[in-house]
């Protein structure tokens, strides 16, 4: 908060809808001035990425602007007190899905970004920091628009104790609701926990375990759990296929 900041890199705060375009402007300005060797990193939440900012992000990605875009995804509008976003999962209760829970699936934002033909896209979890570190480090060496998605558990929004934060993030990966992967120049690769589950041939844990630990899924129905289990299983098979046919 002005005039004090904890961010020790040059940082530009921008309007909600403009993250992709604002990063574009930094890249274009630096290029026009011949200032080299500076990495531009855009940082936005799921609302700013999946919803209000998708236009400017898609435009920048289509133009292959040279920056890293990080989507910090806590699956809802948490800054305004937990309202439904395009990333809120099926069955989750939020400020704007207060009784029935969300009736739609999450948007697959990483697939949308992959469809832009980007040189690098990756999914991460805040519970797997080394995997995240490696991916950001790699992204830095690549030119063009690079997209990194981070699932980030939110204790007050998802209604679980703060001490369970890492565990919830791990469960998301262990159940297959979040799959850790990267796609570099079109080559798909599972990483970290997702890679070890695949290579050891172990089973994913049932999705029910993930829902049981979070108050936001208090109204989820048995049908929705079955539906989501089937969706996860099918998607996991698809990822395994991609990983072995790369």
């Amino acid at each position, binding site marked *: 908060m*002005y005039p004090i900041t904890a961010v020790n890199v040059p940082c*530009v705060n921008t309007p909600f809808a403009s993250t992709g375009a604002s990063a*574009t*402007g930094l890249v*274009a300005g630096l290029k*026009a001035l011949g200032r080299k060797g500076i990495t531009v990193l855009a940082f936005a939440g799921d609302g700013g990425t999946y919803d209000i900012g998708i236009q400017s992000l898609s*435009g920048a990605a*289509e133009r292959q602007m040279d920056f890293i875009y990080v989507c910090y995804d806590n699956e809802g509008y948490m800054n305004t007190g937990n309202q439904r976003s395009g990333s809120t999962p099926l069955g989750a209760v939020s400020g704007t899905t207060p009784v029935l829970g969300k009736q739609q699936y999450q948007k697959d934002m990483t697939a949308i970004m992959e469809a832009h033909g980007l040189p690098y896209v990756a999914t991460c979890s805040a519970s797997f920091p080394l995997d995240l570190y490696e991916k950001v480090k790699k992204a830095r060496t690549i030119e063009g628009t690079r997209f990194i998605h981070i699932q980030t558990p939110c204790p007050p929004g998802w209604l679980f104790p703060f001490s369970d934060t890492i565990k919830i993030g791990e469960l998301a990966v262990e159940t297959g609701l979040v799959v850790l992967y990267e796609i570099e120049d079109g080559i798909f690769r599972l990483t970290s926990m997702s890679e070890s589950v695949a290579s050891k041939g172990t089973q994913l844990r049932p999705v029910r375990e993930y829902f049981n630990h979070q108050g936001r899924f208090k109204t989820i129905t048995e049908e929705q759990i079955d539906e989501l289990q089937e969706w996860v299983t099918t998607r996991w098979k698809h990822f395994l296929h991609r990983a072995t046919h790369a």
Partner: protein
Amino acid sequence: MAIQRKSNIHIMDGNQAAAIAARLSRVQVVAAYPITPQTPLTEQLSLFVESGELKAEYVAVESEHSALAVCTSASIVGARAFTATSAHGLAYMHEMLHWAAGARLPIVLACVNRAIGAPWNVLNDQQDSIAQRDTGWIQIYCRNNQEILDTVIQAFRIAEQVYVPVMVCYDGYILSHTEMPVDIPDQADVDKYLPPYKPHTTLDPANPKNYNLVTLADPRVGVEGKLCHGYMELRYLLQEALQNSRETILDAGQEFNKIFGRDYARMFWEDRNEDAEITIVAMGSLAMEAIVAADMLREEGIKVGVLGLRVFRPFPKADVVRVLRKSKLIVVFDKNISYGSEGATCSEIKSALYGTYINASIRNFIVGLGGRDVKARELADATRKAIASLKETVINPDYPEWICQI
């Protein structure tokens, strides 16, 4: 000493004039989204960049909101940034217009004035830029294509001195698509007139600074123990910058005259106001039409002068009062309407005269919306009607008269 310079006159439309001015201003980043009637300007700039005539980054963005977001960031890192739009595009930029002015970034925007829907209309009026008058931008309106070229160049000089963005407004089709002779200045002269842009804050990894942080209403103490501005102090500084920009605008006009031989040391244009009892006020190309109307009325022995508004923000209150001191009747023509009230320039004139000794009658006419043709004869007729209204109730002076068929 008479200015010795060779003229370099070419026939061109307003969009070409704006594009050439941006090129001569050595803009470094251009971001724009096509919209009628601005599109040829955008195409011309991309042609300059691709052909190598202009060394700049041209970013073909996916929306006007993004166009101004790109310019904002480019300006923050120290690049001279230019964009152009019209009507719905300008409306779509609304959030970023506030942002650019609030961050004190000297971006120049060419607004090719066009009507806003619904219903759809691509033709000229000034509702688009007038609707953005409270975003903290300086607004300058042009009467012809030479003024467009000259004003864009001046706009960068003004913006970069006061750190306030400038909107250069010109009428769609009437100027944007109409060819006129335009004198193109030499690049060397423009370079002399327009020094390189120096940002007020440099974005540098070696000396990290954060831009546009959340700012509370009240001043707060920084890490160095110094009291720093609250939100309201920052807003005051923007208002102060616009209030004080008059001197910079006049100086930019005067210096322009010294180098290029065309005098812009004025907040508005004047025609025969010395002995005028009736003053016609108009803005943009309409101000030229008003001169023709004044000619017609002068032939009838009516002492008419013209005040052609040039700078709408900051509004030159004191200068207007000086010119209108002898007027008995002021007839204001607006190509915009503040619904439920009156034309925006009429409100400004009334506000400027409040508390002065001038007690002139004021009549407001709304004209030319959505490209409705405005003839000098119609302006003269309206002025005669305004004169008649001083004696008999031919119009309701509380609300503007509309020159249309209702």
